[in-house]
């Protein structure tokens, strides 16, 4: 194996990434599985009056208080309309030692993808999307946006402060 080949193989390993697929307002979004802790349904959420609008509320997740963030609001800057009959689902992510729940509409499979199928964000997307998107994966049927969680959560703290 030539050095170049080996390098390429290594790169593809590095690039091989597992993403948890979720859906927000119809858009398929991938969250890196390494930062996802768990997936749970939201029951009995306590709203936080006067807080940033991206903060949906607080829930008790097995004795821990988890702050629920509205992923749809973070990305689209407007509150997501949801059908009220079912309990909303959330993806628990860990960031800087703290667990946050991101409300999503639907949670799908875990997909293994390589960097080969991806491309940078097209320029015509909204600013928030452009900021929080790492890249776009071209799946067979549709496109999936891989979210940069760090950028997302960090930006949010800036807004809050």
């Amino acid at each position: 194996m030539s050095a170049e080949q080996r390098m390429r193989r290594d790169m593809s390993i590095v690039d091989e990434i597992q993403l948890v697929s979720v859906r927000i307002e119809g858009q398929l979004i991938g969250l890196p599985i390494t930062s996802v802790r768990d997936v749970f349904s939201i029951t009995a959420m306590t709203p936080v009056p006067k807080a940033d609008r991206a903060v949906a509320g607080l829930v008790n997740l097995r004795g821990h208080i988890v702050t629920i963030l509205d992923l749809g609001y973070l990305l689209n800057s407007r509150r997501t309309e949801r059908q009220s009959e079912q309990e909303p689902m959330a993806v628990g992510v860990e960031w800087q030692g703290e667990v946050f729940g991101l409300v999503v509409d639907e949670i799908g499979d875990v997909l293994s993808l390589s960097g080969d199928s991806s491309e940078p964000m097209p320029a015509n997307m909204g600013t928030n999307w452009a900021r929080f998107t790492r890249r776009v994966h071209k799946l067979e049927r549709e496109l999936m946006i891989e979210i940069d969680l760090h950028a997302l959560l960090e930006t949010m703290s800036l807004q809050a402060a």
Partner: protein
Amino acid sequence: MDDLLKDFVVETSEHLDIVDAELVRFERDPNNSATLALIFRLVHTIKGTCGFLGLPRLEHLAHAGEDVISGFRDGKPVTAPAVTMILKTIDRIKGIIAELERSGSEPDGDDEDLVQALRALANEPAGAPPLATAPPPAVTIESKGNLSFQILERPLREDEVTLDELERAFRDAPGPEMPPFVEPAPVAPPPPPAPAAEAPKEAPRKEKKAAPKVEAKAEPEAAEAQASNENSVSKQSVRVAVGTLDRLMTMVSELVLTRNQLLEIARQRDDADFKSPLQRLSHITAELQDGVMQTRMQPIGSAWTKLSRVVRDLSEELGKKIELIQSGAETEIDRQLLEMIKDPLLHMVRNAADHGLEMPDERVAAGKPAHGTIHLRAAQESGYIIVEVSDDGRGIDVERVKAKALRNGLSTEADIARMSDEQILRFVMEPGFSTAAAVTNISGRGVGLDVVRSHVEQVGGIVDLRSRAGRGLTVTIKLPLTLAIASALIVEAAGQRFAIPQISVAELVRTQESGEVRIETLNGQATLRLRQRLLPVVDVADVLNLPRQGGSLATDNQADDRLVVVCHVGGHRFGIIVDSILHTEEIVVKPISSKLRHMSVYSGATILGDGSVILILEPAGVARSVMENGTRETAAQSEAELAAELMASAERSLLLLFRAGGTNLKAIPLAFIGRLEEFEHAKIEDTGGRAVVQYQGRLMPILGYQPQAGFDLEARQPVLVFHQQDREIGMAVDEIVDVVEVSIQIDTSHATPGTVGATIIDGKAVEIVDVSDLVAPEGQEKPASDEQVDVMVIESSEFFRALFAPLLQNAGYRIAVLPSLQAARLAIARQKPSVIVMDLDQPGDEGFSFVRELAEDGTSPPVIGLVSRAGPRLIEKGKVAGLYDLVGKFDRQGLMSSVGDVLGGYSTTQWGAAA
């Protein structure tokens, strides 16, 4: 940094703290050989351990210090410079250790200066240090190891003595009963690195008598050593990492929460089988919680050890003699809390030493002992820790605080005039506030008390100041027992539950639309009238923008039947309106998410027994949203408040009962009294036959003052202070008896000069004192309004204005109250009253001529005259002048029926006929 070094740093820091404190004690009591032995042993241990770890700088320093201490042991006089020198050395060692902790290695540097000075001290009177010339050591088991060790080590430096000599000196230090087992520390041979790593770890432990085998061997000595020095490092204890304890605490907190959840479930289902084990679980959890909390407890004295050193240094630096008295050092307090209040304590002690205490000559001149005293006190009281720092210095000059507060724009003159001294004192806790005339090295940069306050409030505590002018200042800190678990009030607002920390809750009240406790709006701001005091109130739902059915308080006046949580935070009292108060619960305070931390209205969140998450309100944060509004509108509000206060004084009035010049009870409506003060008789001076006293920087006349010849000059004279427009007038009384709330039914037939009548309170006749001369005519008139009114009251006495206005208002009339005829003349045309009620108790004929004037006008409304005593002659005169009716001033019924007659039946055109 390796573990070894870490252990060394931790232990050495502890030892140094003890040495610090012990040295200060030793300086005062140089004959205490036990203290000296302890100091010597600690310094020696430090030196020994440094030798092993290859820390030459530390070793060098400790060594030089040890020489001096050993000189003391040999009977050299203990001088302040020597102790200062050693303390300096210890500071240097501390500095090196701090650097060591940070970087893992000794910093570069030279300590030759200190070492030289120390050596000079050691050599001073007795020539060479005695230990250097001492004979070879008496044979002991350890000395063998010693010798071999020394052969292996590097050659001695010129300033060093052999270890053997040191060992011997050390062993000799406390006398023959000194336990020998401390020796292995410096002696253990270090050739292979692994055992070397073991040895120093072992050494201090042995010293602590934690190793059982050593203890067995050294039993008698140990006992003796313990008896001879209570401060000995030896204790039956295990060293546990703080992190482990914190984890334990977190887990217990969780357990408490889970238990609460279970209890909640059990409450809902009546299952007997389930109940008894749950009971037990509950008990065990509670005990476990206590136990774990206990492990986190430390005596507060551990934070005080540093302070004795600080005070000593300060007293040198400032040239003041300061004594530090500690009591309650054994009071236990949560470790975390202790850390948080260490700095505030230091600030407070520094403040006391620097600003509080005067210079010795000043003190002597003031008749106080030359040495100042700072008293540290700690106690546990009703679930809180109370820590107090008091000094017997000059106290805080309220006047200076006032001046500074005005200059800094923290308050307005009008506001300050109405504040109590306590409230004014609180300004010193505002950021950037220092009353120190000069900024000194120690304090006075205005970063003192506000830091104390913010630190203390951060942990849910409360700071209080008490100053007695010339006698000193006491700062009291009230802290919760622990940070992790707090008692909270669970309330509901707009359908959402919140927790309010119990520590800041003063009381809970329910308001009623027309009751004594009610909510009124002043200038659009809701205020709570509680025991004749007005408190700002906020509606939680408003502050948090929660939608509430039926609109918010500010928009509609349906302020009846509300629940108000009255909070007392940082000297401010205010109310928080909630919809319901559910219960109290022990809550485990969880930090709030980093995304919400910037919100000052929340201090955290918690999980309740039913598993739901609720937010913990931070009353100070909620208050800030009120107070900000408050300060902006103070000027407008104060007037409105004054008016409201005056109105409040009618119907049921608060009367101050007192005795003056006789045994009879006298009374003055409280609303008229500005302040109650006490002055020492010695302070009351005589100027041209008038008694005056210096009050708030001015001379205040005191009426009715009888010089107390032969009385103790220390005795105090109670004085009622009346505010006039630009000055105060005092009225001396013999005794202030009580404040009562009564409805005034004044019988004017007993009016004598100086009184307005008498009333019956609790079956006793009480004279109501006429204070209309004391409460000066309020120059400012009501803002001219063009609104039409039903009744216009023209009354020059504030007392009666306050009496009539609410009476008529409560009857449903729109009223205007005017203090003078001149004002009335202008207002009548604009406000078109249907009836005028006016005071005819005026000197001269002005009142009656005014009535005539109105009567002749023809279009003017009828006039009802008010007189103290309506004699037949006066009635006749009134009729002639064209008066509609003449009523006695305290004849409520008469007045009301007369007003009712006019407004009910007669129109202005009919009036002429009636007259």
